């Protein structure tokens, strides 16, 4: 029995966003809503490139931000759940493809 491949989180291609200094703004064009992201959230958003798994994302954050791993893992999970609920990122399983 093979081990299931970890979920990846590609940003939806049609979602406009912009990094401003270390923070970011993401636009939900369906409602014209702007989501302001703090520096940690902005980094998670950047890392949702469709190539990285959740564990990959947590690993990068743990190296870049001064916080306990458990806190980083919990916050990242919550935030990615919010992004998927808002349909700003997708959940992808299976082998990685060109461009995520």
């Amino acid at each position, binding site marked *: 029995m093979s081990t299931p491949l970890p979920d990846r989180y590609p940003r939806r291609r049609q979602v*406009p966003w912009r990094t401003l200094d270390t923070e*970011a703004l993401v*636009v939900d*064009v369906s409602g014209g809503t702007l989501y*302001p992201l703090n520096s940690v959230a902005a980094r998670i958003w950047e890392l949702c490139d469709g190539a990285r798994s959740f564990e990959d994302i947590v690993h990068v954050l743990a190296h870049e931000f001064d916080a306990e791993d458990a806190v980083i893992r919990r916050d990242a999970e919550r935030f990615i759940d919010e992004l998927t609920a808002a349909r700003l990122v997708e959940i992808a399983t299976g082998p990685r493809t060109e461009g995520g």
Partner: protein
Amino acid sequence: MRAADAPPRVEVAGTVFEVSGLDAAGRAWVATRYRGFLSARAPDVRLAVTRYDEIPEDDGRLATLETHGDELELEIGGYRIEGNLAAGRLRLSVPPFPTVLTPAAFRCLCALVLLRAGGIMLHASAVVHARGAWVFCGASESGKTTVAHLAGPRAVLSDETIALRRHDGGYRACATPFFGEAGPVPTQAGGEAPLTALFFLSKSTRFAHRRLARQEAVQRAFPQVFLPKRGSAMAETILASLDAVTAAVPCFELEFAASDELWSYVDAVA
């Protein structure tokens, strides 16, 4: 051709729009509505007007805007503008109303042309001071018209709609013919000054301000941009333009009381 017979030209933020295909009443309407913004310069954009006979249904839509490269399709309130922006040739279909170039449709077109040039059109008022122009941005009832009324001898560029156009690595705040409750202000197409600061207004009984980080400034400015934002390419371009503006000038949250002290307060801030 007598001047009264010539297609009127309207200049907004450095772009000259020529409106052809109008009868005498239409030309007179444009000349009156856009008085102060008529231009003798060569046109950058030619709008060929065609009237149609049906009265449009009010389907509650604010505006639809589709852009595919240089091609434009804009529909607002029964007015339809389509054509190629790069070529500067557009068709304007107008319903059987007395108004020919409705400000809502024309403002949207001006905003799009400005955006393509790296500028932005904002729901804002602006007042000229010794070093340039302060722009006061905000939703309805935030105090834009109040600020314009308080201006006294200072020149007001608009109490409702301000064009920010790129110039020499910075921005100039430009008057527009799109006014609010204050009505037409005594400005003209050449009414502009270097942008020195952008304020996001709220009425209060006191004066207070806070410098905004760029992210917060862009977040506040985004809803005040006069363009439909439902397309991702459009939203991306608006974000890029606001990013550049907020990097170029300081942005503040401003609470203000309706008194002449506003000017000494603002002058001390920016």
